[in-house]
Structure formats: C-alpha cells, structure tokens
C-alpha cells in the first residue's frame, strides 16, 4: 500500500465535486479553476485537470464557450449545464453525508481509544 497513491486517490475522488463547485456561481476558464484549486492545495500538478474537464464536458455536465482575451489567444470559459447543476446538488448532499459519517466514525474511534 502506497501512502502517496491513497492520498492522491482521496483527492481525485472529490476533484470532480470541487470543479463543479467552483463553477457553481460563475463561468471560469481553465487557469482560473486551476488557481482556485491550487490555492486550496487540491492540486499538486496542473495537468490532471484537463482530462477531467474534458470528461465532465463529454458527460454533459459542463459546456464551454470561447471568449476573446486581451492578453493572448481566446479562452475556453466553462459553465455548468442543467444536468451539471443537478449532479452538483447530488454530490453536495453525498459529501455532507460522507463528511458526517467520516466525522462520526473517526471521533468514535478516538473516544474508544480513550
């Protein structure tokens, strides 16, 4: 069992949820999404996000539009679709449940140990 692998997998598991959450209120382009994720230390390297964005787009949860940029080539602005919003709501409640469950389980363990 590789601890790095486990850590990475834990992070990746919720990465989709995070990306969808970032786009909940505002359309953003890849670099902005990356910025947020990196600041929150959700991402170690940037490369990971691109396959994920494409996957979400192909699944119909995201769509994008091209927007001219002042400082370079046009940017892809990603936005949630209706399906994506439903999906995000579902994930949110699942996360709440998971968070609670994990909290209960881990605190139970510590109390047992005491």
């Amino acid at each position, binding site marked *: 069992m590789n601890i790095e692998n486990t850590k*990475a*997998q834990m992070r*990746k*598991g919720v*990465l*989709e949820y995070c990306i969808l959450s970032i786009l909940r209120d505002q359309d953003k382009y*890849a*670099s902005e999404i*990356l910025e947020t994720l990196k600041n929150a230390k959700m991402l*170690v*390297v*940037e*490369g*990971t996000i*691109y*396959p*994920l*964005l*494409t*996957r*979400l*787009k*192909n*699944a*119909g*949860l995201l769509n994008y539009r091209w927007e001219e940029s002042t*400082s*370079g*080539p*046009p940017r*892809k602005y990603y936005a949630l679709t209706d399906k994506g919003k439903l*999906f995000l709501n*579902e*994930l949110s409640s699942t996360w709440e449940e998971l968070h609670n469950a994990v909290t209960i389980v881990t605190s139970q363990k510590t109390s047992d140990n005491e």
Partner: protein
Amino acid sequence: MNKTTNINLGGLFFHIDEDAYIKLRDYLDAIKRSFTDSQGRDEIIADIEARIAELFSEKIQNERQVVGMAEVEEVITIMGQPEDYLVDDEIFEDQPNQEPSSSSSSTSQNQKRTSKKLFRDPDDKYIGGVSSGLGHYLGVDALWIRLLWIFLVVAGVGSGILIYILLWILVPEASTTSQKLAMKGEPVNISNIEKKVREGFDEVSEKVKNVDYKKMGNKVKSSSRTFFDFLGDVMTVLVNVFAKFIGIILIICAATTIIGLFIGLFTVGSVGFIEGPWTHYIEVLNTSGVPVWVVSLFTFFAVGIPFFFLFLLGLKILVNNLKSIGSTAKYVLLALWLISVIGLTVMGIKQATEKAFTASSTETRQLSYPISDTLRIEAESYGSWDDRYYNERFDIVVNNGNKKLYLEDIKINFTASEDSLGRVKIHKSAESSSYEKAREKAAEIEYDFSLKNNTLYFPDYLLTNYANKYREQEVEVTLSIPEGTVIYPAPSLRRKLGYRNANNMGYSSYDLPGHYWKMGKEELHCLDCEEQEILDEEKTTPDKDERIRIDSNGIDIDIKDENGDNFEMKIDKGGIRIKAGNKKDTVV
C-alpha cells in the same frame, strides 16, 4: 550559443531553443500517448498546449525573448509528469462501480475504443505463438485455438499446417511492450507500460516512441467537428465495411483455392509413390517422361502464388498492422512463379513434341486356305483379364501381374489381291518425338490374327506394354483376297471396318457385315443384298408430284404437268393400266 526554432503553441508564436524544443515535444508526445485510447484526446491536448502557451507568455517579457530549457522544465513541473494525467483513468477504470454514472459510461466507451491488434505472443508459445496471439485477439483461451489447429490439421489434410505457417510469417511478433499491450487490448499508456516494465521488460522507452507517433501528431488540430467531418466519418466507416467485406471474400476464395491446390498437390503428386487405378491414367498420358510430382509442384506454384498474393491482399484489408512478407520473400515467390510457368511451358512443349512424329511398322502374311470356300471374318474380343481399369481412350489390363495398355483403335479393310494369293497386311502406327522412336513404339504393338476352319479372327483390340504409354497407337489391317473369293464379314466386325471398302452397292462400311461379298476386280460385289434395300433408299426421297418406279412389282409411272393434267401408267401382274387426263385404258 543555441539554435532556435519557431513554434506555434496554442495559437501563440514562440522562439524556442532547439534542446528545449525537443524536450517539450517529447513531453507532449508522452502525454499524447498516455491518452491514446481515451475519449477526447485531441481536445485535452489542445487545452494543455493552450495552458503551456499561457504559462510561457507569462514568463516572457517581450517577443524577442527565447524560451529556454529552464522555462520548459518549469512548465513541466507545474503541469506534472505524464503519469499525473493518468491517475484519473486509473481510478475510473479500476473501480468503475464507485464512480457516478457519467464516468462509468465513459469508461465503457474507453474499453470499446481500445482496439486490439493481432500479434504473435512470444511469452506463451509452443511453435510460433500464433495460437496465443489469436487467443488474445479473439478473447479466447489459447487452448481452444490450439485444439482447433489440431482439428484443422487432422480434418483438413494438413491444410491447417499451411494456414499456421502463413499466419506465422504474416503476423508480427509482439516484441515491444507497447505491442504486447496492444495485443492484449490494454491501452498503451505510461502507467500500463510501467506495469509491464516492472514485470521484466527493458528498453521500452525507445520503442514506445514509435507507437502511433506520426498518427497522433497529425491528429492534433482543431477539436471542433464540422458536419463534413461527420459525413466524412460515415463515409469512411462505409468504405471500411465494404473493404473488409471484399477482404473476407478475397481471403475465403484464395484460401480455398490454395487449400484445394495443396490437397491436389499431395494426391496427384503422390503418383509413383502410391498405386491406385486412377494413378495409371495420369502416368499413361504423361508421355514426356517428366515425373508427375514435378508437374504438380509447378502447377501448384504457378496457380498458387497469384492466389497467395490475393490472400495477402485480403489479409491486408482486414488486419491493419499486418507485417509485410518482405521484398525478399516477394522476389523469391515471383521467381518461383516464373520458374514454374516456364517449367510448365517447357514440359507442355515436350509433351506436345511427343506427338510430333507418326511412324508405322508393317508386316504382311500370306493366307493359306482353300480359296474356293467362303471366308468368314470375325472380330474377336478377348476378355479374360485378371484386372481391367476402364478409361476414356484406353483401358489398362493386368494379366499375371503384367500391366498392358488396351486400345480399340483397329481398322479392317478389304482389297483385291493382285495375284491369286490371300494376304493380311498389319499396319501398326504410333506417335513419338522422333521418327525412330515412333517406329519403335509402333513395332511394340501386339496384334495378331488367327485362321481356323475358314474363319479369320481379328482381335478388336491391340495391346502394348504399359511402359510405352498412350501414343495414339493404331492398327490398320488390310485383307487382300484374290478376285472371285467370297467373304462373309460377321456382324461383329461392324465397328471395325475402315472407310475404304469399295462395293457395288455403295454401302457404307457399317452395312457391309452380314452379307456375302464376292471380290471383283476392284470392288466387292454383294451376293445376297436385296434390291429392295436400294429402292428403300430411293423411297426415302419421293417426289410429291412425279413418280417413276421400276421394281420387282412392275413399273409405276405417275406424272403431273403444269396444267394439272395427269399421266399414270402401271405395269404389273395385273397387266398394263394407263390413265391420261380423264381417259382410262386398261390392257390385260
């Protein structure tokens, strides 16, 4: 000092150091390969390139600045190693059930798109690894394929061996890791290759580079799909399906022909090794003396090689990564084909020249019999053979283990003798490649007649040694009899009489037997032919309006002129009756 290159990255223009460029290119290639089989690869790559371009442009102050090794390495650190792009895939593919519906559907699509390729498996082989390779390709345990081979070899008279060898030659061996992955249908990506490497394969990196390198490079372009792209895809699919269909037909036709030829080669080629009634036939006709197996081998190559190339064509249409058989093999096959065709031509000419010369051998024997008596002539068929094989133009008979050719090309003619002696002339002829040889073969024809109780017996067949082969051997018998001799050709002669039998009745040779004939100065005179027979012939062409008949019943005349006037006259036992116009006279 460093040489620089210009690149267009995500729509932006950069000067970049040559070494940095190579590093960046290799990095992007590695990423491209890691997405070989996943969905939306082109799009992902375009996004990544755009991001790298963005990072570069942040680091470069003005247009004249060059992107160096340091910038590239920095960008790679930010973006992550190719493996980092794959963690997602591993999660989704290893535990698809834990993922929401969106990713599981894309996973199944991934698996569908993972195209397997046909390779031979060098790690699991008994002979050439063909079976295990086919097993991987078809998703069947190699054991079943091996059993199928055994069945094919046993049931298909060895044709399975031929197919196996063909596949062995044509299907490439999976020698590199990426080929082994493609063989098993696993996507060729970095982590899978790493897994393989850990299992004990070395020197991967160099070979991995070859995988789909150019293809990927060409495919990286705009990710937007236009309607015409879609239309093009549909057309491509249709054309592909059609091509595969043709490929299958080609393979089936060519394979059947080759297998048929193969079986033929073994059966016909075994003439001389295996004895059978039908082998005689081929042996006897083969007068050129070239061994039959050589002829069949040449025929096999002359016909088989073009079909082999058709087979290859079909396979090429069906299997994309088919290994070429190599130009050496092609030239060898071409040479073999030419040799076979030339060989066949030469042998054909040789066989033909065996018929170039016809020669004969003649013997004349005097007959001693009482000329005054009627000479009866019979055809004699003798049929007590230990064994007899019937063929179209000749039979083969065996007596006391001696094989002989049995032919029925006998002609018997009657002529008038110039003196008072009866003679029988036996004229034997045969064909061969030279006059001397032909005469030799003619002399070896066994034919004799016998005279018993005023009856001449002519065999209706000739014999010659089996080794002489079929050379259109013929016997022509001429019976010369003195003028005045009476002969009776028995009906058994009917089919054996030659055309030159002049007779006063104008009979065809076929009609001569069954009557008594007396030899005149030049022709035979019938002694017991009924005149009726001649008249019957005339009757067969009667004139509707006119009739003049003179026969044993009397004379019968019936004429009609253009005005419709009749003239009838009849002379018979009842007297003479004449009827002209409306008048009628009868004289008794």
